[in-house]
């Protein structure tokens, strides 16, 4: 009973922690560029400012899909924290992205269509690796349950190549350079979320924080019962992602797909074969 309460509090706090992660990320990124950078609480300032804007929406379905995008990713994070099914988590996350894509296509703005299109392409790039990751975790562990994964031996020693494949697709997932075609600042000005404003953009903005929680929780799973190792992996991934984001330029979406299918996917697949025939 007590553990359920603690887990519920963790789920409720997930957006707050995600906001802090985003704030720290902006600070770290600024320091890497030799800038001062904003306050660590800056995402929350943005949050309150967006709540104060006048209500403007394109049409009600568009706004509804944006809010559902936020809710479904929160449910995905909740299932992840409660130790549910890994496949369910991955598909709930896919559902949330699909809702954003539908939102992007529901307006008449050409930039919104372009962003939704590119988001769909980036799903094509990263989703197979996530599925293969789940399958190889099943092959090693005999279960999709996250609670059993977190209680077992560290997965990193048994499937290091899958972890490398995950690291390769994380920039696509989090829309970071060099694979930020879906967001593409100043090129298509934010992608599928371009038509959202005010309190509805807030849902998208907060969903972005929850994305960080989702990704770093996936990375944390590789630590298994060794929580210290998991935390180390999370910190290492954080630094790797930001260093990569700052040091690389955006690539074409074709190059992104090619990289995903010819580098990341085979790496994950080789690891799956090794675990299956071991």
């Amino acid at each position, binding site marked *: 009973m007590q553990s359920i309460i603690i887990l519920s509090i963790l789920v409720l706090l997930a957006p707050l922690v995600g906001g802090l992660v985003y704030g720290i990320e902006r600070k770290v990124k600024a320091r890497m560029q*030799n800038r001062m950078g*904003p*306050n660590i609480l800056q995402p929350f300032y943005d949050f309150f*400012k967006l709540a*104060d*804007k006048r209500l403007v929406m394109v049409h009600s379905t568009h706004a509804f899909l944006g809010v559902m995008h936020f809710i479904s990713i929160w449910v995905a994070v909740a299932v992840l924290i409660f130790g549910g099914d890994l496949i369910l988590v991955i598909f709930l996350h896919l559902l949330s992205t699909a809702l954003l894509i539908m939102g992007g296509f529901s307006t008449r703005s050409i930039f919104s269509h372009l962003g939704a299109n590119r988001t769909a392409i980036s799903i094509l790039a990263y989703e197979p690796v996530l599925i293969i990751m789940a399958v190889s975790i099943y092959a090693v562990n005999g279960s999709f349950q996250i609670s059993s994964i977190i209680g077992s031996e560290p997965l990193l020693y048994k499937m290091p190549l899958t972890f490398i494949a995950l690291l390769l697709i994380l920039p696509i997932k989090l829309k970071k350079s060099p694979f930020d075609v879906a967001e593409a600042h100043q090129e298509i*000005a*934010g992608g599928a979320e*371009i038509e959202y404003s005010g309190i509805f953009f807030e849902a998208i903005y907060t969903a972005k924080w929850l994305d960080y929680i989702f990704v770093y929780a996936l990375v944390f799973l590789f630590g298994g019962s060794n929580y210290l190792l998991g935390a180390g992996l999370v910190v290492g991934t954080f630094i790797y992602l930001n260093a990569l984001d700052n040091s690389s330029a955006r690539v074409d979406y074709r190059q992104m797909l090619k990289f995903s299918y010819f580098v990341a996917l085979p790496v994950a697949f080789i690891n799956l074969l090794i675990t299956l025939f071991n």
Partner: protein
Amino acid sequence: MFELKKFRKKSPWILHFNAGGCNGCDIEILACLAPKYDIERFGMINTGNPKQSDILLITGPVTKRTRERLVEVYNQMPEPKVVVCCGSCASTGGIFRGMYNIEGGVDQFIPVDVYVAGCACRPEQIIDGVVVALGILEEKTKEIEKTIKLANKPVVEEDGQVNRRNMPAELTYETAV
């Protein structure tokens, strides 16, 4: 009480719009975002999306091609919003004033809150202008702000507001008469 108003000052998102200038002021605006001046430390982001921004930074004089776009971009920004004119071209028309393709200053079409002088305006001046604009932003209400209608008839009266003259239209009007 928890006031949302004070957070407007802490995260102003900028939309940068070039109405047809020579790119001098644009370079200075980008210099503000670069490591030397780093206005991101005040929470400012260059969003490039009118629907999510609070401050409209305009550079350059309004040309016949950009005036409808300028009004459209301004109308897409949700209130509260402020407009900052960067440089003398955006404020009055500058050296382009009176040319056949130039309409003049920005304030003929949309209400302007802060004028930043200079050709090109220095990054320090832009930051100063934006800080003044933030003070205005905090006072503003969420009422819809209307643009000034595009004039069909040339405005020829000179009541101290020389800037309201629609010179190209005036020329054609005079030749037609």
